[in-house]
């Protein structure tokens, strides 16, 4: 298991290196006029040259890359061209925002999709049809429309929650919750439908297996069979679906954060990309790939815990 984990970590580090290198050279190749974007249309060539020198953009490409690589290995991700904030500091400040939304959305996703999936699989019949119908509608309903509707009803009309912005948990747990609950609901709505379908399908498969018949013949309660045995075995595929959704939520956070003006990772990544803010883009890439590596690793560990057979495979 340890060798397996070390191998996965090593592969992850190589992936991080390759992706950040690609990001650097592709961005450099795009020839984004950073100094011009900062100084405006009327700036003369001398001003542009001065700013390029200040930002180190007048140096040869490989020198710029190795300077970034060296400082990154020393824990310094550089400073944003456009906000002058250290990238590591910016990511550290923005990560709690996105994580708050994504984690709450994940909890809602797991609870609601498991409840829907189990109810559909266990009850069947009309309840299954109704729940599947709800899941389908939730799956196809555009999140952006839901976001606008929720803002209009709960923020503008009822004024129960703020329309925009984020309140840190340390400042006020209740205000924190109110500031992220709407984004979290919008973020998870499609995922609930997908994961509920996955739980339902896997659970129906499990309930048809011989060990379930054996458990029933021993007089084990249906509740125990369903929640203690079948659901645990059905959780593997659902966990894989969830891991993909969790990573996908970081991507979807981009539009969620735009709608709710949340100062999170998504808006930081978006702004960095459209502005050509290379240090910020590299920091975002580094973190994004790192996140994928870590989540996949955790899913592998969790799968092993849920199903001992997975450890040996």
């Amino acid at each position, binding site marked *: 298991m340890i060798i397996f984990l070390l191998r996965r970590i090593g592969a992850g580090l190589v992936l991080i290196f390759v992706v950040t290198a690609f990001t650097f050279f592709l961005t450099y190749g*795009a020839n984004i006029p950073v100094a011009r974007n900062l*100084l405006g249309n009327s*700036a003369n060539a001398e001003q542009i040259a001065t700013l390029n020198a200040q930002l180190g953009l007048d140096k040869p490409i490989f020198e710029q890359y190795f300077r970034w690589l060296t400082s990154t290995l020393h824990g310094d991700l550089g400073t944003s061209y456009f906000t002058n904030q250290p990238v590591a500091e910016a990511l550290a400040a923005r990560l709690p925002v996105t994580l708050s939304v994504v984690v709450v959305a994940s909890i809602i996703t797991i609870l609601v999709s498991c409840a829907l999936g189990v109810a559909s699989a266990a009850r069947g019949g009309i309840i299954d049809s109704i729940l599947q119908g709800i899941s389908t509608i939730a799956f196809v309903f555009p999140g952006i429309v839901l976001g606008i509707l929720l803002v209009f009803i709960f923020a503008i009309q009822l004024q129960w929650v703020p329309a925009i912005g984020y309140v840190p948990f340390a400042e006020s747990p209740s205000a924190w919750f109110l500031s992220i609950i709407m984004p979290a609901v919008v973020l998870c709505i499609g995922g609930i439908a997908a994961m509920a379908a996955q739980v339902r399908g896997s659970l129906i498969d499990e309930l048809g297996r011989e060990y379930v018949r054996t458990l029933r013949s021993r007089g084990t309660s249906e509740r125990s069979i369903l929640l203690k045995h079948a659901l645990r075995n059905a959780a593997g595929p659902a966990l894989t679906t969830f891991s993909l959704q969790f990573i996908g939520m970081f991507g979807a956070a981009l539009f969620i954060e735009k709608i709710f003006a949340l100062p999170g990772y998504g808006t930081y990544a978006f702004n960095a990309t459209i502005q050509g803010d290379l240090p910020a883009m590299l920091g975002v890439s580094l973190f994004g790939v790192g996140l994928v590596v870590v989540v996949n690793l955790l899913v592998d560990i969790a799968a092993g815990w849920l199903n001992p057979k997975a450890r040996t495979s």
Partner: protein
Amino acid sequence: MRTKLATRAAAVTIVAAFTLAGCSSGGGSSQNNAAQVDRTLQLAITAPPSNFSIGNWSGGDATLFNSVYEDVLGFGVDGKVEPGIAETWEYNNDRTQLTLHIRKGMKFTDDTPVDAQAVVASLEVARKGASTSQNLSAVTSVKATDGSTVVVALSQPDAALLPSLASTVGAVGATKVLTAESSKLEPVGSGPYVLDKSQTTVGSTYTLVRNDGNWNAKAYPFKKVVVKVIPDATAAQNALRSGQLDVLPAAGTKETVAQFPQSQFTTGENKATAFGALWIVDREGKLVPALKDSRVREAINLAFDRDSIAKNLTGPGSAPTNQVFSPSGQAFSKDFLSKTPFDLDKARKLMAEAGYADGFTVTMPSTPVSTTFESTLTQSLSDIGIKVKWETVPFQDFYPKVFGGNYGMFFMYNGYSGSDAQDVKASLSGIFNPNQNTTPELQKLLAAANSASEADQGAAFRAVNNYLVEQSWNAPLNSTSGYYVASNKVKYTPPVSYGQNVKPYAPADSK
């Protein structure tokens, strides 16, 4: 450069207003007599400020910057230059030496004195600053002759100097940290507000707390100003509706602001903030020989039905213009609009006289800014025989291609800068004049305008304007202003120079 760049960027992309800063020695007062109340003003900006250090600030809205720094001079809501750190000022006879009389008793928020030496130190840094050097290019020296007098020497008269000193170019910071790395995010000035680090999240929310030690603190009624970064227009509108913002100076179109109930909000039209123009940059005819001929350029100007463009294409909140000067300034003249009427017969005749009766072909860059105008431009120019080939250009390639001489002309917006002098300077530099074209006549008119007294500057720059229009230097098409929405809790006065300070805002119940 500060004002020009900052406001220009803002004005082009959002809505803004910039104009004249003609002033008289000794200036007026910026007191608005608003009662001081412990209220909070909530504003939004579309992008975070990039750099608070002197000489390096860039971005659209300078409200944050000009709130933490007191400038050498100030901008009033009416666009006029007012006293700032300099209580009074005067030029010598040939306007090559500006003497600033520094207000006594001022202190930076680190308790060090704001004196002549501090002003000199900041202006010296601004002279080398990437964002500001162009604005101070005529300055040859800045010297303190005593503790409260600064003499700025110029290589030639520059009418844009005073409005520049009233903008971010004239910001004065504490000498100890003037060039320190910390000043990029933690400015130390003597402005009406202090950036409260404990309530500020860089890139997201900036909180200003009133500096009661500022010489003009009584003119600032809000104890706290919270500026939120909201790039998305819909999110900003939702924030205003839910009470998380007080004003949206650039709320959008007339249709957009009409959706805000009048019982809770006040809406209105801003001052003109930017103008769209067909920039004729190949005036030497290197790429498109026809453009060298003033008759062809005049024909191009006559080919556009500007009234129809303003009415049918850009809609309410825009107006026809054929000038690079702001309608809020003194150089602009409504009478000049009749110099380039929509007259296809005359345009075709001019084309024929110039030897282009069969027209010619021109390639223009298609950018996100030009797309709305492309069919109109294509149609109007084809009416006089000019065929347009649109070349889709990623924005990052646009500037290098313009500077590389790849286009004879292109469509782009340019923001009004805050003064006639700055407007014309901007329109004759950067991408708007990549080949730095000029003529002896234009140089003479510009020299006269820059040397004119404040009282005569309007007429002098109007003469420059007249020359540019008659020579069809470019083909401006429409000016744009846009609309604002303010909560009924706040009184908003659309300023001539948008995004400069918090002076346009006051509590609704203030006098």
